[in-house]
């Protein structure tokens, strides 16, 4: 594609995506039906499960499965007591770095 078409591609993709984000936000308060509300309450956790399973296999290469599981297990353990997400995430990154270093080193 030539530069003008590429530019048009970005603008069209951006405008469509902006509308997809904007319109539901603008009219979300109309979704007052209790069943609809309960349906929507489940969306964040559903998204969490869906994203976790889709990104799990790309977090670390497949042959580092043990490291991945230990790192994420530690994150779960550190999250058991409420106290923010920074320590669980930092712990997982440190375990992942140490695991990779041991494998590579």
């Amino acid at each position, binding site marked *: 594609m030539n530069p003008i078409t590429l530019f048009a591609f970005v603008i069209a993709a951006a405008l469509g995506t902006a509308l997809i984000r904007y319109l539901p*936000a603008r009219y979300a308060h109309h979704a007052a039906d209790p069943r609809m509300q309960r349906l929507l309450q489940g969306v964040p956790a*559903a998204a969490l*499960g869906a994203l976790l399973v889709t990104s799990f296999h790309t977090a670390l290469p497949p042959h580092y499965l043990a490291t991945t599981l230990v790192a994420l297990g530690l994150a779960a353990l550190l999250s058991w007591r409420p106290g923010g997400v920074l320590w669980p995430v930092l712990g997982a990154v440190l375990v992942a770095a140490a695991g990779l270093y041991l494998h590579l080193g």
Partner: protein
Amino acid sequence: MDKPKYGFVDPRAVPIAVGYLPVAFAFGLSAVAVHLPGWFAALLSLLVYAGASQFAALHLLASGTPFLPGVIAIWLINLRMALEGLSFFRRVEWGHRMPHLALLLTDETFVAASLGDPLGPPGYLKLVWLPYITWVLGSLLGVLAGGLLPALLQHAFGIAIDALFVSLLVSAVRADPRTAWAAAAGALGAFPGSPLGGWSLVVGMALGSLAYLIASLRAERAA
């Protein structure tokens, strides 16, 4: 509503940004690798700000997909954001007054913003600005520098987003056990290798919210 102790950045934004950096960097590198101009990658990150669809755009354009099917594919991949926006902005009373703030909502910031107390506009901005800036700058760095981040660190940082998801999930399930059903159904619907392809995430989210509704109705009947 907001927790003033957060300062300028919500702590939950940090792992999201840390996770975004290598991905955005890889996006910039990939754009250059498939011989697309650097400005195209940077502009896509700046204006579209949706990782999965941006990577898809590179593949579509590199494989010679025509303009209109390419653009429609991007919209379809991003359609799940409508469901996310509907879910998040229904919970906040300021949503219909400031719907433009939805332009900075991503999968990860949506999950972080939705679990816990409803955020006000300042709290929401404290959560979303850092991941956005990191995404755009990371893409630029990937285009300009290439190979700056050692592979070991890139991989280790790659786990940050998954650890964030695990942490948020544990907190959510402890607060409301019904969310475990929603997460399990969401994971099942989006399982990798599903014949649904790019739709698997949308189907997973729809299945998960249906599972939550059923679990709520059963709990009500039992009570």
